[in-house]
C-alpha cells in the first residue's frame, strides 16, 4: 500500500494552508494512494469537499483536526498542538466525536482559553476534555490523537528531557487508552529546533521505548514546494507582521506533500539518525498505514452521506404518514388559491397535485416540504412579508402550502424543473423576507426547532483581487497609501484575473500605469495572483440556515457566529447537499421592507379613504375597510402601472431599476405581466451575450416577424414572442420533439448545461422518429436541425421562468405602489434604501415626481421616514431623525419622549444632545421650528448662530443650568452668523440634499451652456448633439460585445437620470475624470432605442465645478468696470 499522508492542512486551515482539498486528493489519487487524509486547523470546514473528492477518486477519506490543547494541571504554559484523527468504526462514533470535539473547542469564550502561537489567536481545548468526546461507553477510542513536535511530549523531547517526555506520554495514554500515537515529522529544520532530523529521531526512539505506535507525517500545508512563499505571505498576514519582520530562521520550507517514495526514504534517514535498528523504519511505515486504515471512513455509514435529515415529524406537529399529511395540507390550500375555479380547472389542479405528491413520495421528500411549509407558516404568523424564489415556484404543492405566491398554471411553470428525475439531494427553496425583520425570522426558526436541529450556514470569505493585493502589499511592507491607490476601482475582480483586468478595464488604467512604471510592484501582483480564492476566514452566510434532525450536532461542528452568537455550522451550502441537511436561504430583501413600510403608511395616513387616495374603486376587494392593502390580491393588469413602467422611470421598482433595465423597459414597452417576467429574464449576462435582446424587443413591438421554430411549439413560445427564453420552454420542446417525459427532459437540459452537444445524437434520432396520428413524420430533417440549433445555443442564455416569475411578483407590487401611492412608496424606499442607488438619488426621484421633502424637525420627525399631510391633497415625506449622522439611540429616545420642545434651550436641556449633534441638527434645519419666535421663523444662519452662542456660553460656564432657562433662548445672534450652503450641510449630515438638488446652484451656467435636462432626452431625435450634466449616481463598465469595455455613468440632474456611455476613444479623452469626479458635464449625441429608450453616446466630459469656476471668473470679469 502506498504510504498515506496523515497530517495535511488545506486552504480551510485559514491563513495557513494553500491547497484546496480537491487538489490534495487529486495528488493522492495520482500517486495511487488508497487513502487520503485531511486534518485542517481548528475545524473541518474543508472535510466534506475532501470526502466528495475522495469518493470521486475512489479512495477512502480520513478526516481529522489539528488543534491547540492545554493541560490545565500545568498552569498557563504554552498550549500544545495535537492532531485528532477520527476512526472509521462503522457506527459514526468517530465522526461524531470529532465534530463534537471541534464544537467544544470553539464553545469556549474568546480571550481566556485562546492561544497566540505562531500568529493569530487560536481556540484552546483542555486536554482533559478530549476523553469526553473521543472515548465511548466501553472505553474504546473513537479517534487517535497524534502527539507531534509541538505537543508537550515533542517539546520535552526537544528539551532533551526524556523522563518528562515519558511522563507526558503516559498521561496521554491514561486519557485515551489505545488512542495515542507519536507523530514523527522531519522538515530538516536547523539542529536544535523542532522538526529537525535529530528531533524526529529522538521522538521515534521515545515511541519505541514506550511501546506506543509512531506514525510518519510531513505536516503538510502546501501541495508543491513552489507554494511555500504563499505560505510565508499567509503567515505574515496572520501574524500581522510584514515579511521583513519574520522571525528567523524561516520554517515550513519542507511542509509540502512529498511523494510516498520520498517519505519512505525520510523514514530510513530518521532511523539512521537514531539509536534504533534499521527495521524500525519498516515498523514506522507499517504503523502509519495501519492507523490510516483504522481511520478510513465510509461516508454513507458514518455520515449518512446524501441521506435527507430534516426535523422529526413530531416537531412539525405531524402525527400522520408524512405523504398523507402533505397531501391533506395541499388540498386545504385549493379553495384559498383557486376560489373561483370551475370543474375543468379544478380537475387540472387535482391531477397535477396527484402527480407532484407521487413524485415527492418517490423521492421521500414529503418531510422536507412539510418543514418548509412550517417555516413559512411561522414567518407569516409573525406578519413578515415573504416570497419564495427560484425553481420551487414551479411547484403547485408549494403554491398550495403558501410557500410561493406564484401560480404555476398562470405561467406554465413546471414541477420537473424543480424536482427532476435524477435528483438525489434535497432541492433548494429560497425565501425572500423583509430585510428589516430577518433577525426575527432567524430567531423564530431557532426557537421552533431548537439549537440542536438548527444552525447558520457558513461561508469561507475568499480573497479576490482587492483583498489579495492588500494582503500581498502588507506582507511586502508596501506603504498602505500606495496599496490603496492600486486597489481603488478593483471591484469584483478575481485575483487570478488581475493582470487581464489591469489590461482591459478602463477604471484600472492608472493602476496599470503605476505597475509599468514601478517594476518592484511586479512581485506584488505575482503574490496577489497566488492568493487567489484562498479563504481568509469562516463567516456566517448572509442568509443561509440549515435544519436537520436531533443528530445535527453529531454531523456538523458548530461555533458561535460573530455578531449574533447563534450556532454556525462549519460547512457551506454545497456541503449541505452531501450531508443531507435542509438548507434554507432566508434572504433579507430591502424592497420587501420598503413595501411593508409603504403599506403601513397608507393605512396610517388614509385609513378608510385608502382606496380613493390610490385612485381605486372604493369597493376594491384588496383594500380592507381599515385601509390595509393586500398586495397579493391586486389586479395584474393595471394599465396605469404598465404605463408608468414604460416611461422608464422605474427607480425603486424591484429588479427593473438598474440603468440597463430602465433602458430595456423603455425600449420594449411592456404592456402585460409576462413582459415583466421576460424583462427580468432578458437582462442577464447570458441573453445579453447571446444577442437575444434585440430580436425579442423587435418581435414584441411587431417590428420583425418572430422566427417560427415549428408550429407545434407556437403555444409554448407564445408569450416570449417566438423566442426560446426559459428553461421551462426547453423542457416542453424536448418533450414534444423527443417524446420524453418532462422529468427526462430536465435531465437532458441539465446535461446540456455541462456539455451542449451531449444529447445531440439522441435528439436527432428521436425527433426524426416522431410521427403524427397518420404516421407522417412530425419533423423534417431541416426542422430537426433548426430546432437542435436553437436548443443548443440556448445552453448559453436560458433562464428559469419560475425564478423570474417569483421576482416579477415583487417587481409588479413595487411598480403598483409607486404608481398608485408614490409618496408612501418613496417613503418606504428612503427608509430601507433598496436597489443600487444612494439615498440622494431616491430623493431626487421623489423631487422629480413632485413629492415635497421635509427636512428633519425635532418636533415632527420620527425614527422612520414618514408621510406628512401638508394640505387636503398634498403630502410630503418627513426625513427621519435616524438619518442624521452620529445620532445615538439614547438621543433619539430622549427627543421622541421629550417633545414637543418649546425652544432651543428647552431642547438642549431635556433632549441633551451632544454638542456636535446639536450643531448638525441646526445646520440641516432640524431646529428651525423651535428657534424662531411666534410669527417670525428664524433663518438657518440665525439658528446656527444661536446654537453656537449657546454652546460658547456653556463652555464659559454659563450653563446648561435649569434655573436659568431664559438665558439660552435670549442669547444674541453673534456677528459670526452667516448663511451656510444648505445643500452642503445636508450632504454631510444626511448623505443627501433635501432642500435643493446639488445641481441647483449651477443652473444659470447650465442654461447658458445649453445643457439639456434628463427629462428632455426622451423627446429628442436619434443622434441629436447634446450636453447633459448631473451628479454621478452609478458607474459601471460592462463588457461590450466585441470584447472592449464601455463605461456607463448615470447622471442625476433632478429631472431624472441621463444615461451616458463612454466608448474607448471617449474614455481616453476623459482620463481619470471618468471615475473620480462627482459632478460632470457630458457632451455627446443621443442614441435612441425604442419609444423611450435613450442614452447619450459620450464624446467628452468636464468637471462641472471646474467649468463653474471658469464661468464665474469670466462673468466677474465682464461685470467689473473696465480700467
Amino acid at each position, binding site marked *: 500500500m502506498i504510504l498515506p499522508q496523515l497530517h495535511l492542512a488545506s486552504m480551510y486551515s485559514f491563513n495557513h494552508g494553500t491547497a484546496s482539498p480537491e487538489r490534495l486528493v487529486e495528488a493522492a489519487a495520482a500517486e495511487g494512494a488508497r487513502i487520503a487524509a485531511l486534518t485542517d486547523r481548528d475545524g473541518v470546514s474543508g472535510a466534506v469537499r475532501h470526502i466528495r473528492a475522495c469518493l470521486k477518486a475512489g479512495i477512502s477519506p480520513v478526516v481529522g483536526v489539528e488543534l491547540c490543547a492545554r493541560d490545565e494541571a500545568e498552569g498557563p504554559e504554552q498550549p500544545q498542538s495535537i492532531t485528532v484523527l477520527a476512526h472509521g468504526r462503522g457506527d459514526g462514533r468517530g465522526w461524531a466525536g470529532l465534530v463534537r470535539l471541534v464544537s467544544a473547542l470553539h464553545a469556549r469564550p474568546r480571550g481566556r482559553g485562546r492561544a497566540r502561537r505562531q500568529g493569530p489567536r487560536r481556540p484552546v481545548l483542555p486536554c482533559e476534555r478530549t476523553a469526553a468526546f473521543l472515548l465511548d461507553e466501553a472505553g474504546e477510542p473513537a479517534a487517535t490523537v497524534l502527539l507531534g513536535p509541538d505537543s508537550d511530549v515533542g517539546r520535552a523531547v526537544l528539551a532533551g528531557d526524556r523522563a518528562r517526555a515519558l511522563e507526558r506520554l503516559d498521561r496521554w495514554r491514561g486519557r485515551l487508552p489505545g488512542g495515542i500515537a507519536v507523530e514523527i515529522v522531519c522538515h530538516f529544520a536547523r539542529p536544535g529546533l523542532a522538526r529537525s532530523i535529530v528531533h524526529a529521531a529522538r521522538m521515534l526512539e521515545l515511541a519505541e521505548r514506550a511501546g506506543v505506535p509512531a506514525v510518519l507525517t510531513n505536516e503538510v500545508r502546501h501541495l508543491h514546494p513552489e507554494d511555500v512563499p504563499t505560505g510565508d505571505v499567509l503567515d505574515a498576514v496572520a501574524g500581522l507582521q510584514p515579511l521583513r519582520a519574520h522571525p528567523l530562521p524561516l520554517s515550513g*520550507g519542507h511542509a509540502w506533500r512529498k511523494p510516498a517514495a520520498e517519505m519512505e526514504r525520510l523514514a530510513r534517514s530518521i532511523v539512521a539518525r537514531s539509536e534504533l535498528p534499521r527495521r524500525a523504519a519498516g515498523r514506522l511505515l507499517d504503523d502509519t498505514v495501519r492507523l490510516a486504515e483504522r481511520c478510513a471512513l465510509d461516508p454513507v455509514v458514518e455520515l449518512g452521506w446524501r441521506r435527507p435529515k430534516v426535523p422529526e415529524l413530531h416537531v412539525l406537529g405531524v402525527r400522520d404518514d408524512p405523504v398523507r399529511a402533505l397531501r391533506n395540507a395541499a388540498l386545504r390550500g385549493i379553495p384559498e388559491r383557486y376560489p373561483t375555479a370551475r370543474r375543468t380547472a379544478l380537475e387540472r389542479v387535482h391531477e397535477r397535485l396527484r402527480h407532484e405528491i407521487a413524485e415527492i413520495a418517490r423521492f421521500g421528500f414529503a418531510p422536507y416540504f412539510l418543514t418548509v411549509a412550517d417555516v413559512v407558516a411561522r414567518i407569516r404568523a409573525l406578519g413578515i412579508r415573504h416570497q419564495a424564489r427560484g425553481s420551487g415556484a414551479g411547484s403547485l404543492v408549494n403554491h398550495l402550502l403558501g410557500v410561493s405566491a406564484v401560480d404555476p398554471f398562470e405561467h406554465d411553470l413546471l414541477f420537473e424543473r424543480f424536482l427532476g428525475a435524477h435528483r438525489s439531494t434535497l432541492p433548494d427553496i429560497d425565501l425572500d423576507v423583509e430585510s428589516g425583520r430577518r433577525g426575527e425570522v432567524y430567531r423564530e426558526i431557532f426557537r421552533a426547532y431548537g439549537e440542536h436541529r438548527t444552525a447558520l450556514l457558513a461561508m469561507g470569505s475568499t480573497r479576490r483581487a482587492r483583498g489579495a493585493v492588500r494582503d500581498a502589499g502588507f506582507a511586502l511592507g508596501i506603504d498602505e497609501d500606495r496599496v490603496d491607490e492600486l486597489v481603488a476601482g478593483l471591484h469584483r475582480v478575481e485575483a487570478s484575473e488581475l493582470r487581464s483586468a489591469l489590461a482591459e478595464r478602463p477604471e484600472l488604467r492608472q493602476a496599470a500605469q503605476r505597475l509599468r512604471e514601478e517594476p518592484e510592484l511586479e512581485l506584488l501582483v505575482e503574490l496577489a495572483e497566488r492568493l487567489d480564492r484562498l479563504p481568509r476566514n469562516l463567516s456566517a452566510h448572509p442568509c443561509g440556515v440549515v435544519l436537520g434532525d436531533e443528530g445535527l450536532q453529531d454531523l456538523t461542528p458548530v461555533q458561535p457566529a460573530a455578531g449574533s452568537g447563534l450556532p454556525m455550522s462549519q460547512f457551506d451550502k454545497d456541503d449541505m447537499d452531501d450531508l443531507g441537511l435542509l438548507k434554507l436561504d432566508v434572504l433579507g430583501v430591502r424592497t420587501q421592507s420598503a413595501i411593508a413600510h409603504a403599506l403601513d403608511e397608507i393605512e396610517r395616513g388614509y385609513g378608510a379613504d385608502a382606496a380613493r387616495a390610490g385612485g381605486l374603486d372604493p369597493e376594491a376587494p384588496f383594500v380592507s375597510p381599515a385601509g390595509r392593502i393586500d398586495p397579493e390580491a391586486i389586479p395584474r393588469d393595471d394599465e396605469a402601472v404598465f404605463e408608468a413602467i414604460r416611461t422608464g422611470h422605474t427607480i425603486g421598482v424591484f429588479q427593473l431599476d438598474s440603468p440597463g433595465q430602465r433602458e430595456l423597459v423603455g425600449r420594449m414597452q411592456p404592456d402585460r405581466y409576462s413582459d415583466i417576467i421576460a424583462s427580468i429574464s432578458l437582462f442577464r449576462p447570458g441573453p445579453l451575450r447571446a444577442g437575444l435582446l434585440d430580436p425579442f424587443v423587435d418581435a414584441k413591438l411587431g417590428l420583425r416577424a418572430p422566427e417560427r421554430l415549428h408550429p407545434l411549439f407556437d403555444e409554448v413560445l407564445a408569450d416570449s414572442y417566438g423566442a426560446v427564453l426559459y428553461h421551462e420552454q426547453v423542457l416542453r420542446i424536448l418533450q414534444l420533439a423527443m417524446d420524453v417525459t418532462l422529468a427526462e427532459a430536465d435531465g437532458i437540459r441539465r446535461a446540456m448545461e455541462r456539455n451542449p452537444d451531449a444529447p445531440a445524437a439522441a435528439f436527432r434520432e428521436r425527433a426524426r422518429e416522431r410521427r403524427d396520428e397518420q404516421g407522417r413524420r412530425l419533423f423534417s430533417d431541416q426542422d430537426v436541425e433548426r430546432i437542435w440549433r436553437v436548443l443548443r445555443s440556448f445552453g448559453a442564455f436560458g433562464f428559469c421562468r419560475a425564478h423570474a416569475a417569483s421576482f416579477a411578483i415583487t417587481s409588479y407590487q413595487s411598480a403598483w405602489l409607486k404608481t398608485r401611492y408614490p409618496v408612501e412608496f418613496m417613503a418606504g424606499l428612503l427608509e430601507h434604501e433598496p436597489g443600487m442607488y444612494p439615498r440622494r438619488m431616491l430623493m431626487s426621484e421623489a423631487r422629480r415626481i413632485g413629492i415635497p421633502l421635509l427636512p428633519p424637525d425635532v418636533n415632527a420627525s420620527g425614527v422612520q421616514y414618514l408621510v406628512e399631510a401638508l394640505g387636503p391633497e398634498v403630502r410630503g415625506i418627513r426625513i427621519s431623525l435616524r438619518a442624521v449622522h452620529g445620532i445615538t439611540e439614547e438621543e433619539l429616545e430622549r427627543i421622541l419622549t421629550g417633545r414637543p420642545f418649546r425652544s432651543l434651550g428647552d431642547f438642549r436641556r431635556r433632549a441633551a444632545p451632544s454638542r456636535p449633534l446639536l450643531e448638525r441638527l441646526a445646520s440641516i434645519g432640524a431646529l428651525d421650528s423651535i428657534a424662531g419666535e411666534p410669527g417670525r421663523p428664524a433663518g438657518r444662519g440665525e439658528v446656527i448662530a444661536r446654537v453656537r452662542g449657546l454652546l460658547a456660553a456653556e463652555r464659559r460656564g454659563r450653563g446648561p443650568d435649569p434655573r436659568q432657562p431664559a438665558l439660552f433662548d435670549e442669547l444674541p445672534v453673534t456677528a459670526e452668523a452667516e448663511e451656510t450652503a444648505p445643500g452642503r450641510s445636508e450632504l454631510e449630515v444626511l448623505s443627501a440634499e433635501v432642500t435643493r438638488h446639488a445641481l441647483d446652484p449651477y443652473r444659470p451656467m447650465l442654461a447658458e451652456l445649453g445643457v439639456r435636462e434628463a427629462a428632455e432626452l426622451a423627446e429628442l431625435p436619434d443622434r441629436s448633439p447634446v450636453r447633459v450634466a448631473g451628479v454621478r449616481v452609478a458607474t459601471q463598465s460592462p463588457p461590450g460585445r466585441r470584447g472592449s469595455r464601455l463605461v456607463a455613468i448615470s447622471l442625476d440632474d433632478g429631472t431624472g437620470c441621463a444615461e451616458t456611455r463612454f466608448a474607448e476613444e471617449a474614455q481616453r479623452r476623459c482620463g481619470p475624470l471618468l471615475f473620480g469626479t462627482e459632478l460632470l458635464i457630458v457632451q455627446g449625441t443621443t442614441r435612441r432605442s425604442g419609444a423611450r429608450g435613450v442614452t447619450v453616446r459620450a464624446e467628452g466630459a468636464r468637471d462641472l465645478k471646474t467649468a463653474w469656476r471658469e464661468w464665474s471668473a469670466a462673468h466677474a470679469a465682464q461685470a467689473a468696470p473696465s480700467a
Partner: protein
Amino acid sequence: MRGSSGAAEPARVRTSPVSGAPERVVWRGRSYLVVEAPVPWVERLPWWEGAGPERTARRSRERRVWRARVREEGRAESPGLLLDLTVGESEERWSAGRVAS
C-alpha cells in the same frame, strides 16, 4: 549559543558519493576529516529581498547545510570543531562557519 554559526568562509568539501554528505573539508588552509555522521538541514532565505529575477515568489530560496563534527587531519588528539557546511543556492560552492558551542 549553540546553533548559531559564525561568519561563513569559502571551503572545499569532498562528499560521499553515496549519501552526498561531507567527508573531508579544507577550510582556512587546513584540512579536516568529518568524524561523525553530519546532520543535514535546510536554511531558508528571504525570497522577497533583492532585485531582478531573483526576487520572485515562484519558488522558495534555500540552502542545504550539513552540521559536521570535524577534526584536523593528522591531529587525532585535537578537540575538534563543529562546522556548518553550506552548499550555495545554485552551484556547488561550499562555505563553512564555525558553530558556537
